[in-house]
């Protein structure tokens, strides 16, 4: 059995892993499989979920408190960064779907972000639709376009796919530029303030989303929901099909999994999410121009996924937060303790890039499971120190 990195699985379901714990009575294959499929594996996971939920709720209150941060720590800026990270997490996860589960590197994410931007412009700025309607529609359009892109992708593997998607990126940027100049103008496309539809109950009806706090809740719901959805797809037999195709697609075909269909499904899902991310980004930044869709941004998603750990959902989220928040705090750190160094202050963004590049190489060389892998190992070790047997 190939090792599937899925941290939702408690250690005991992998025979031999975890330090010499006695196995309970449920060791027959059927029982183990059923246990695997459970949503929550025991009280340890419930605790983790609980802590995560508590953090999620605490964040907006914590960060919008009007206190003066000690030691000049960036406080309100962190809140903005968290929102940026949430949007990035969705993009990272969609990149991860392709990379971690189907082992295909696609550089076309920028293209789908641009597609999302065009959809948001057409329906939102020009059409007046609420963002709540635009999002699912953009997912559908993104999926369709993803399938269209995915079909020729079947003929290509590895580098061919990578370069082909690179080409798609450049075309998409050109397309956005033509669209922008045709319908808008030189300053880029301006998006209206995001607002919820009127029929929602109470204060939610017709509410506008523009402060960091409001965006935070909106993003938690949208991004969290989408990622959970995607994660559950992975847990189903499609997910297992992904993994089979990833490892040995000829063998997979023999066993009845249709690699073509699986690859296309992965593309569709990934593109749908990336397009949604494009819509979110358009509204959050309230302005997008052809220059906004740089190749560097796409490479950054790759960084997030690799550093966070691919083939795990947590990996993309952790990676997104890491890559967004670390530069902010690194900057604070260098300002505080290295304020006199000219070299550092003049080259802050290059130093950032240097660190992240080095991090990628180090992670890939030594710990390919990334931060999520480190977190998993830590958690296993600390939780196992407790004497309890599992369930």
């Amino acid at each position, binding site marked *: 059995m190939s090792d599937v990195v899925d941290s939702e699985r408690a250690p005991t379901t992998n025979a031999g892993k975890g330090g010499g714990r006695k196995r309970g009575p449920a060791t027959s294959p059927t029982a183990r499989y059923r246990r695997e499929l459970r949503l929550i594996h025991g009280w340890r996971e419930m605790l983790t979920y609980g802590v995560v939920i508590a953090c999620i709720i605490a964040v907006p209150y914590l960060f919008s408190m009007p206190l003066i941060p000690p030691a000049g720590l*960036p406080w*309100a800026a962190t809140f903005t960064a968290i929102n940026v990270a949430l949007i990035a997490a969705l993009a990272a996860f969609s990149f991860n779907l392709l990379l971690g589960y189907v082992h295909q590197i696609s550089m076309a994410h920028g293209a789908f972000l641009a597609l999302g931007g065009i959809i948001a412009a057409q329906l939102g700025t020009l059409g007046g639709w609420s963002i709540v309607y635009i999002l699912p529609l953009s997912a559908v359009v993104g999926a369709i376009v993803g399938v269209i892109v995915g079909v020729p992708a079947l003929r290509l593997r590895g580098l061919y796919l990578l370069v082909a998607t690179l080409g798609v990126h450049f075309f998409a940027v050109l397309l956005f530029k033509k669209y922008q100049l045709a319908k808008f*103008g*030189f300053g880029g496309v301006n998006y209206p303030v995001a607002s919820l539809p009127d029929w929602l109950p109470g204060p939610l009806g017709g509410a506008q989303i523009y402060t960091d706090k409001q965006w935070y809740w909106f993003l938690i719901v949208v991004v969290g929901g989408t990622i959970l959805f995607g994660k559950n797809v992975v847990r189903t037999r499609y997910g297992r099909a992904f993994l089979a195709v990833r490892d040995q697609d000829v063998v997979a075909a023999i066993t009845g999994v249709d690699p073509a269909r699986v690859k296309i499904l992965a593309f569709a899902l990934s593109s749908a999410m990336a397009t949604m991310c494009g819509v979110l980004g358009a509204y959050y930044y309230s302005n997008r121009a052809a220059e906004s869709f740089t190749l560097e941004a796409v490479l950054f998603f790759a960084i997030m996924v690799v550093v966070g750990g691919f083939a795990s959902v947590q990996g993309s989220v952790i990676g997104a937060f890491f890559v967004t928040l670390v530069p902010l705090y690194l900057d604070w750190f260098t300002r505080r303790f290295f304020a006199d160094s000219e070299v550092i202050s003049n080259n802050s963004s290059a130093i950032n890039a240097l660190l992240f590049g080095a991090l990628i190489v180090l992670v890939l060389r030594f710990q390919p499971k990334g931060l999520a892998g480190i977190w998993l190992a830590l958690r296993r070790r600390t939780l196992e120190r407790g004497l309890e047997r599992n369930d």
Partner: protein
Amino acid sequence: MKKRTSRLAVLTATLVLAATGCATEDSATVDGVKSNPSEGVTDDTIKFGWMGAITGLSASTLEPKHAGTEAFFEYANQNGGVAGRDLELISYDDAGVVDKGLTNYSRLVKDDRVLAIVGQSGSQITEPLIPKVEQDKIPVIGPGATTASQLVTPYYWNNIPTYQDQADVSIAYAGEQLGGVDKIKGVTVSLAVPSGVEWREFVDQKLTVAGGTFVKGYDMSTTATDAVPTALDLQKLVKDDKVNYIFIHGNSQSALTLFSSMSQYNVDLPVVGIYGVGSAATFTDGPPEITDDLAFVHGFTPPSVDEPGMKTVKDFVAGTKWEKYIKEDSVHFINGWVDGMTTLEATKRAVESGDLSREGLQKALATITDLDTGGLSGTIDYSRYGHNGGAVARPYTFADGKFVAEGSYEDWEGALKYEY
């Protein structure tokens, strides 16, 4: 179990400590002016923010601009500051990336709580920030370029002439060179970005209205390594006597690319361009037959031009780390210096009117209609449409290793149409 509890305890303790570690704010009165820490006025300093691309894209214009403002603040502090306080510039680099720009903005406005932002750059960053600036009601002085939306929002105080202004002066200059605007047969070469398209449309429109001929516009990819197709096409047009002037939009890099391709194919046309091409390198590194007929247009004066105010700058930076900008003859450094000047003037007026706050600064800026910067720029007049204080420009050429100003700023005021 024990380990987890103790870890939790440590975490809680840290949070509590952090909360109590928060500094208390002073709000005393110094020099007759009450402190206002939530808007950047503490007992010792008045805080201003700077954000833009110190590295990365556009760094070649923005990094010297930042240095200029930094240098001016130091100069102002050495001369007594304002209301007994020093001026402090808190700068963040966003390398032209929107995400960083947004985060840095939050930091300046909410964490560092600056009084105003001096310099904010890149339309991909200003555009998203305009709604937030309007919400936070914070003045932004001397942004990096002047776009249409910046002319409409009341919180932006623009010091750099718009592309329309630059087009006006460029066309007038070309007309002067050829003996009449109606004699111009012009082409544009622009970077393949939206502002490049803007440039082409302005030149097209204005040239036609003035009686000249607009022949065609060329695009240059931002990653282009040569401009061979453009040069070849120009060669054809020159042979048929269909073109006699090039109006260029771009930066030093793209200009040099164009010139070297032109030179390779023996295309020698006079060129006038936006301030983006206005660095000494364009003139010194380019093929001489083309740079002999090259000019750029700007609302600021490069250091090698003698103006009354230039001596102050040169004397001040001598022996400091900012000296290299004078050596490099960077007009963008002067741009930053002037941004500092307008900021200082507005701050002083706000103090005089007794309201040193963001709102007070906003009102003070509106009163600046006649600021003389000693020849470092034209007269700054924010009463012009769209707070376009710096909407004055003049052409510069280059000779004997120095820039040459073609006349004074007043000489060219007649060319400016102010039709936005």
